[in-house]
């Protein structure tokens, strides 16, 4: 099978959906003439023209709201945030408009929109450019939230997101855009809300999603050498969460470590932990542990980043702790 970059997978998803449906358009900062701040939309202006690939001024609140209004009136916008850090100035339109419109109109107005862009840390960018708000958006009813971890999932899930009739938050990573993965030539869709068992194992379940799941793969390889078998579940969608896949795995391994790039309080890890203790309490042979970002703004210095972010060593330590080794 051919191998393509994460950014190419996203681009193909948008191109295919725009060829299929005239109402789909892409709007955001630098998406058109600049070919995308991270080259995700490279070539799309040339193919679709400036009616459907639209550069905006730096006005996230304004163009997020214009996207929601357009979706209420029959279009299917894909709104790109250069990063989700900048979505904070637009969050009123995401939470108060997109997520609420269907409910407060008694079902009359729906908002088939995708807000997409990179999330979380991406090198030495300091505090304002390194935040994972995945769990913030996942907290809000009315939204769906997708955080893919490889090109194959990214393409199939973005196509589903664009076709979905509900507002979808689609969170990528600057550090993944150049990563390659196998993606078939043929069209495919991946359903929203389904987790994927990325590695089968027997001793401990690792639950993660997005870019940071790589720390789980690295840890699992090391632990394999020591005879510890890790099962890795990629949630892929964090609203809704596929609890059943997690519960099935924990009932098999009896041990759970959750790895997430958000801050610890009120994280997806917290939520999954609640669900597992409630529905699989008797299956647990050890307390559930989590590896998250440190409970501080992410600083600039590499030593502090190393100390703050989840990494393979921290995951290995957590796994050994739940194994009592």
């Amino acid at each position, binding site marked *: 099978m051919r191998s393509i970059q994460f950014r190419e997978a996203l681009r193909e998803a948008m191109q295919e959906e725009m060829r299929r449906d005239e109402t789909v358009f892409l709007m955001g900062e630098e998406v058109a003439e600049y070919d995308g701040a991270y080259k995700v939309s490279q070539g799309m202006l040339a193919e679709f023209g400036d009616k459907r690939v639209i550069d905006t001024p730096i006005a996230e609140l304004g163009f997020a709201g214009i996207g929601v209004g357009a979706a209420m009136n029959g279009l299917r916008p894909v709104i790109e945030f250069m990063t989700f850090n900048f979505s904070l100035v637009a969050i009123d339109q995401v939470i108060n408009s997109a997520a609420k419109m269907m409910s407060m109109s008694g079902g009359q*107005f729906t908002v088939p929109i995708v807000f997409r862009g990179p999330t979380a840390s991406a090198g030495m960018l300091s505090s304002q450019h390194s935040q994972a708000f995945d769990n913030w958006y996942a907290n809000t009813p009315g939204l769906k939230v997708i955080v893919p971890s490889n090109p194959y999932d990214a393409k199939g899930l973005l196509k589903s997101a664009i076709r979905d009739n509900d507002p979808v938050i689609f969170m990528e990573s600057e550090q993944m855009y150049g990563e390659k993965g196998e993606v078939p030539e043929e069209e495919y869709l991946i359903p929203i809300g389904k987790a994927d068992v990325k590695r089968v194992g027997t001793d401990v379940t690792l639950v993660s999603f997005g870019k940071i799941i790589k720390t789980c793969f690295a840890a699992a390889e090391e632990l394999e050498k020591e005879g510890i078998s890790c099962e890795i579940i990629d949630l892929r969608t964090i609203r809704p969460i596929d609890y059943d896949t997690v519960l099935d795995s924990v009932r098999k391994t009896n041990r759970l470590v959750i790895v997430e790039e958000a801050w610890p309080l009120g994280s997806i890890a917290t939520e999954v932990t609640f669900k597992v203790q409630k529905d699989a309490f008797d299956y647990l042979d050890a307390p559930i542990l989590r590896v998250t970002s440190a409970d501080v703004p992410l600083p600039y210095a590499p030593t502090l980043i190393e100390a703050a972010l989840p990494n393979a060593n921290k995951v290995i330590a957590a796994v050994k702790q739940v194994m009592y080794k």
Partner: protein
Amino acid sequence: MAKARFSKEQYLKWYEEMLLWRRFEEKAGQLYIQQRIRGFCHLYIGQEAVVAGATSVIRHDDNMISAYRDHVHPIAKGVHPNAIMAELMAKITGCSKGKGGSMHMFSAEHRFFGGHGIVGGQIPLGAGIAFADKYNGSDRVTLCYMGDGAVRQGALHEAFNMAMLWKLPVIFIIENNNYAMGTSVERTTNVLELHKIGLSYEMPSKAVNGMSVEDVHDATEWAVNHARGGNGPVLLEVKTYRFRGHSMSDPGKYRTKEEVEEYKKQDPIEQVLNTLKKNKWINDAEIDAIDEKIKAIVEESVRFAEESPYPDASELYKDVYVQDDYPYIIE
């Protein structure tokens, strides 16, 4: 006597609809005091000409969106008063199925895109509704209403800039009643003439006497022709006045009784009635007949709302997602 600017039929229509809205809002105020309407309740009394002078211009298929002082706009757009009163009373027969309340009236059928509760939030939405029409090659226009308080929000400036940049067919209408809740325009800005904000974006902008339905009609006609003609957005600052408080819990200490009385002398409904009388287009019997007819409509809306059921508890998990099997967390 100066010749009336519009036909007898037009004045009669304005009189009847504005009087209906006035009586409807008076009733809503009474019901709120009796706690039969809950939540917040922002009445439109005094501002009727702002909407009446616009709906006499636009087409049925044009779009409208507004803020949270929104009981009257949807009625003007064709929504039955029963559906508004039922929504105020949180009934399933309300125009938003009892899920929106006073601040969130909606009607897809009448292309009323809602009452919105975050000040200024509806301004980019209005631009976006117009964006979709332009994208689809439709010649509909969007009327996007806001209060004078919303002019201070960043959302307005971002939306104005892009609406001009992309020549969107939207008419922004500031209903300047001079008070953002209890804070006067003078206390929030050095730019007292709010229509001048549009000039910052080179948007055609105009101040309008909002106590005169004729003036609002003329200004809206100019604005609609401009926007429908593909020339982009227009800003109207309609100077109006609310005779009641910001909401039902407003002590009103920020303005004088004399000021309120002064504006009541310019009551837009009285002005239209005077025109009808001066032209001998209406007699006392006809005025009484209109009063009775309107009273019956308002009473019927209350009866309809009272007799309608609240939403059943099973409605809680409906209308949140289009996906009908969305797996809610239910514990």
